[in-house]
């Protein structure tokens, strides 16, 4: 009986450990971004590389397990999609802080400058689900966020 109880406890612990992180379903973020770009209806988006992470966001590429990102290239729109998976929970938290800073900066830049873009931005957000963190800014943010959520099983 003791053996059985021990086995049960062990199994339960393993189960809880495996399922403790929200957003546990894995996704290939490059594929997710590709899908989102198709729905974003902005043909002027440019992809970002690992070289852009530190100067643009202050994010250490070593903190990421994978990422995919693109931003409007014209300088006149606020569209920006940043999808990241931290290498662990602590890294994801650091990425979250940096994307929060980016979001605030975009607000500061657009508030009295591009009212329509600012109105869009205010409806968008930084989102963290376990190791996954994203910033999705687009007039079609609802559709894009649904693609993201579906891909990650959120």
């Amino acid at each position, binding site marked *: 009986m003791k053996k059985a109880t021990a086995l049960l406890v062990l199994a339960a612990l393993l189960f809880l450990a495996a399922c403790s992180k929200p957003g546990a379903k894995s996704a290939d973020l490059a594929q997710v971004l590709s899908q989102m770009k198709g729905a974003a209806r902005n043909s002027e988006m440019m992809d970002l590389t690992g070289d852009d992470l530190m100067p643009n966001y202050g994010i250490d590429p070593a903190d990421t397990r994978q990422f995919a990102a693109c931003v409007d290239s014209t300088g006149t729109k606020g569209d920006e999609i940043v999808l990241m998976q931290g290498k662990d929970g602590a890294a994801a938290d650091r990425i979250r802080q940096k994307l929060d800073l980016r979001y605030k900066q975009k607000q*500061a830049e657009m508030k009295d400058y591009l009212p329509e873009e600012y109105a869009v931005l205010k409806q968008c957000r930084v989102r963290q689900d376990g190791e996954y963190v994203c910033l999705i800014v687009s007039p079609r943010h609802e559709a894009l966020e649904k693609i993201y959520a579906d891909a990650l099983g959120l």
Partner: protein
Amino acid sequence: MRKPGRLAAALAAALLVAACGCGRAASPAEAASGSAPSSRAEQKSSVPASRAPVSQKLPAASSAAQADPAVLDDAVFVGDSVTLKLKNYVTLRRRADSSFFGRAKFLVAGNMGSGNALAPLGENSIHPPYNGKKALLEDSAAQMGAKKIFLMLGVNDIAPYGAARAAANLEKLCLRFLEKRPDARIILQSATPMLKSKQLKKLNNESISQYNGRLREICRKRGWDYLDVASVLAGKDGALKPEYCSDPESLGLHFTDEACRIWIRYILTHIKT
């Protein structure tokens, strides 16, 4: 005594199977490579197809009097949304040629002007973060090791401050850069014109021209360099040539890739080495 044991073992096995199901499955990329995906490589190969022809379309710039782009290795470009477009253009070109435009860095924000750049640093101030740290422009430039500081500001200043005060604010901002980097060279670039059809009451090609005249005077007085970028982008009427404008339906002052190419060539053929 045995029955509960078997039951517990079966239950434990079921839980273990369920636990594995909840675990993180390898992504297709990871599965293919057997390790975490190389995001850099993936990103590099996923430059939008619409962008790819840019470098192919561009004819080789005249190399006669063109400086080596390495002259910009210690340069920082400070500007608004016009310079933000230049930054994005350079970023894309560097995917194919890492030495494109030297190692010039950028400090840009869409609505930046010398007026709001002079404002105190704060959570809601305009100052763009560099490497994740928000700082005054002069502090970020110093951190970047800037020895040549190119500034193109004005289109966000002329309406609220007027041409004369906007130019005075830019002069003040330049002096702040020099306080932090006394050995740096200041290079003021003219503000660039708008489409003829997009003239506003306070911001128009006439006021931009007045502003640029003030900048020229400041440069003469201070011994700073002045680059008349506007001269290669304007038509005979002084307005931005329509073929260089990316936003003819809205503000009528932002640039196409071709305008960026001309701007860069102008810098490389006019920079004092």
